[in-house]
């Protein structure tokens, strides 16, 4: 499949090479292992493959079939059709990393614009050209902070309100740094206590980095200004993990004084797609630009003085610096960054604000309605953006099964990761949830509460 060679052409080529048959090209391969039989099903034609894949796809129920109130790090937003129309273009889709600027200005300028939009949205000086996702961006922030102090500070503090998967990923990434301790996220008895409170006593002169989230994993908003000041007073860096959609409405994390802003870029026009590919946002202050991981595109000129873009500060990267690189990242998520660039451009200033407000308004309407159901209450305990905690009268799994019967994808079961939060559901509401959907959720919960 997809091989263009005709028999005649193959023969002619073998003659030029000077071998008789294709097998002769593989003499270097140990004979006992050569040409194994692969246990794969017979090849399908395109027509058959479509049938097989369609069947698998139909075996799922998704956010088009169910009213979705599930978030917890991945959100159901509307993606304008123009996003896909642009990223499908072969010129973007089938190009490689833009190492050759003369024939890659399209990708390069798009990445430059991505960097600009992210810097503006987060309130930071610079953004890199993407990480794999929010979790790995957070891990890279930790790695950067560690190296920023040349290993002399050996403590990294993670707020317990940072996405559990991000925290796990940081730990996995850094398990080889044996002198390092990663702490701060022991979940207190009252898991809802402010991260500012839990962390305040722990920041010291050995702290390389403090990581908080905004809105936090529970959807809540805290002003981190004081905490950042406290960290800076100790010489530590602060990383704020954020949801870029919230920043259409909310103060940029840069305004709190963050040194690094990371985030999951998926809400910016990326399909849920069962978890990936998504987009790792990473922005920082100019001071750290030589320390960050990944690709950076800079503006310059060509020989005739025309504005041009090029990958820059490559001496940070693995292909130049090898074992001395700031990170091992090579392939990132360029096309997803492009999609988010198109999304941010299409929505622009007014659309980004509007979507954020819709999320906020609808979430608060939903919260109010749910709070009025006997047995249910909203217990976020702080202002929230578009996700909130519902205290339920029964195990979340049970409630979700009931909701599923009503065509509703319920919220995230907080008890899974936070034992102290048994029977608490994290409910996410976006612009995609019509009032009808919210009312149906409320009715279904009422029904449950009556049963």
């Amino acid at each position, binding site marked *: 499949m997809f091989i263009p060679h005709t028999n005649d052409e193959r023969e002619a080529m073998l003659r030029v090479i000077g071998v008789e048959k294709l097998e002769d090209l593989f003499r270097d391969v140990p004979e006992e292992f050569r040409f194994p039989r692969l246990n794969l099903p017979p090849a399908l034609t395109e027509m058959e493959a479509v049938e097989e894949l369609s069947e698998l796809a139909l075996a799922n129920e998704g956010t088009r079939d169910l009213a979705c109130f599930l978030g917890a790090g991945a959100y159901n937003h509307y993606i304008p059709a123009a996003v896909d129309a642009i990223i499908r273009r072969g010129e973007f889709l089938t190009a490689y990393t833009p190492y050759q600027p003369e024939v890659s200005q399209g990708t390069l300028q798009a990445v430059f614009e991505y960097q600009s939009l992210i810097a503006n949205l987060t309130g930071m000086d610079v953004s890199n050209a993407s990480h794999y996702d929010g979790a790995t961006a957070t891990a890279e922030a930790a790695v950067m902070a560690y190296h920023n102090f040349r290993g002399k500070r050996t403590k990294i503090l993670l707020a317990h309100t940072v996405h559990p998967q991000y925290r796990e990923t940081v730990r996995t990434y850094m398990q080889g740094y044996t002198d390092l301790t990663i702490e701060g996220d022991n979940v207190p008895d009252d898991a809802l206590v402010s991260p500012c409170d839990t962390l305040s006593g722990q920041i010291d002169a050995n702290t390389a980095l403090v990581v908080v989230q905004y809105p936090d994993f529970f959807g809540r908003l805290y002003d981190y200004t004081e905490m950042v000041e406290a960290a800076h007073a100790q010489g530590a860096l602060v990383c704020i993990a954020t949801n870029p959609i919230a920043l259409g409405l909310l103060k940029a994390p840069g305004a709190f004084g963050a040194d690094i802003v990371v985030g999951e870029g998926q809400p910016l026009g990326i399909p849920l797609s069962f978890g990936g590919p998504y987009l790792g946002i990473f922005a920082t202050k100019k001071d750290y630009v030589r320390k960050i991981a990944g690709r950076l595109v800079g503006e310059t000129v060509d020989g005739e003085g025309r504005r041009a873009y090029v990958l820059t500060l490559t001496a940070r990267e693995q*292909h130049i610096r090898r074992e001395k*690189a700031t990170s091992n990242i090579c392939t990132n998520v360029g096309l997803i960054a492009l999609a988010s660039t198109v999304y941010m451009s299409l929505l622009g200033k007014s659309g980004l604000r509007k979507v954020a407000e819709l999320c906020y308004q609808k979430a608060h309407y939903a919260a109010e309605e749910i709070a009025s159901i006997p047995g249910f209450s909203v217990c976020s305990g702080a202002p929230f953006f578009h996700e909130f905690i519902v205290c339920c009268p029964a195990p979340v799994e049970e409630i979700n099964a009931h909701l599923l019967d009503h065509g509703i994808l319920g919220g995230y079961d907080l008890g899974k990761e936070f034992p102290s939060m048994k029977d608490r559901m994290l409910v996410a509401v976006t612009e995609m949830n019509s009032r009808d959907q919210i009312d149906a959720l409320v009715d279904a919960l009422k029904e449950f509460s009556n049963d």
Partner: protein
Amino acid sequence: MTEPTIYELSSPGRVGVRFPDADVPPTPLPEGFVREDLPMPEVSELDVVRHFTHLSALNYSIDAGFYPLGSCTMKYNPKINEEMARLPGFAFTHPLQPVETVQGNLALMYVLQDWLKAISGFEAITLQPAAGAHGELVGILIIRAYHHDRGDSKRTKILVPDSAHGTNPASSVIAGYEVVNIKTDADGNVDLDSLRAVCDETTAGLMLTNPNTLGLFDCNVKDVIRIVHEAGGLVYGDGANLNALLGIVRPGDVGFDVMHFNLHKTFSTPHGGGGPGSGPVGVAAHLADFLPDPVVEIVEPGTATEAPLYGFAHPAKSIGRIKSFHGHFGMLVRAFTYIAMNGAEGMRAIAEHAVLNANYLMARLKDTYHVPYGRICMHEFVMEGKFDDVPDVRALDIAKRLMDYKFHPPTNYFPLIVHEALMIEPTETENKQTLDSFVDALLQIAQEARSNPELLKQAPHDTPIGRVDEVKAAKDLVLCCWMPDAV
């Protein structure tokens, strides 16, 4: 024509895509948290479509032409892959849905795990890594976990041949290891003496790319693996070059302990101008327990009439979670489609024709360009982009001049062990006519190097822009554009 930036296109008050008004009663905005300005562009939908259409036209791409970028496997990316990944049943599923509602996704992942096992000879697979380098990190952490699990914590070194890709040493360092470089011998294989000299009880493992970045199958591979194993180390396979081996040899059979796949190379998922990729990792049986959390398994076996129930399982001694959720699912759908459409015979044909194409190019070019390691190559080969009689002309000049002939240049200056390296990987999806015109262009350029070297030094001439000032970029460091002042 220089294309304005999206900020330069902005006009205050212009609106692009609209959203409905709220259909719920209003709630006051959260006090103290509302941002004052939102410096994002204000453009119309048409502005956006045109802008990115213009930008796209400045790119070279596989869809537009031959892209023989060594080590990157720039093969045709089938259009059907894109359709399949966009099927609503796949694209509109949330990663945290109850498994009962995503049995299609899980079945696909489970089967893909099986297929990758069958292709590679490994015993267990994680689909989670997001790219090759991510897979490397996972693999090295697995090696680390393996040693530690056995109470063996004095192994501090990863051996890396000098021909290796930069991600290999970088990944090793992130995983906490010291990197020891190993020489390549005159035939382009790992130098066994150098290897023996450094293998000891501090050796955690070796990262081996085979075929290596010279495009050569390491004839010593069995010895290399044996030597490392005998020292108590494990052998990591960098699977970036797996395209040459499909149906030819299974790395698991040869004794590799762990390897990453690059679905965006071998299995035709698009490169997207720099990702997203996908870098599943396969491991031998003794490493299965260390795979990242979670893997897809059958949690309730099927019956004659009912499908099994698929779910997530947590390997006993897992290195932990390495990213959010479950890998680049959209890429998995594409790779699944590709493997389904090729089958066992197709796999072998891919490797055979990738190798055929590379050897054909090498045969036609080797009298004009010096090929330092002249034996039969695999899916790619490395030649020198320089001529003894015109020392001024460099690989870079040849690369840039190729653009004027409408070809993407080969990878250059990698691997580091070849001077002025030009690393050429044609892939199996290119036809003889294309290969012949590429050769013709390179032969022509070799003549131009003699007759008019300036033509090369000033190249490219026929691209949207000429050579760029990289020094200025790094010195002035303009990494963002900002909202122009309101009119």
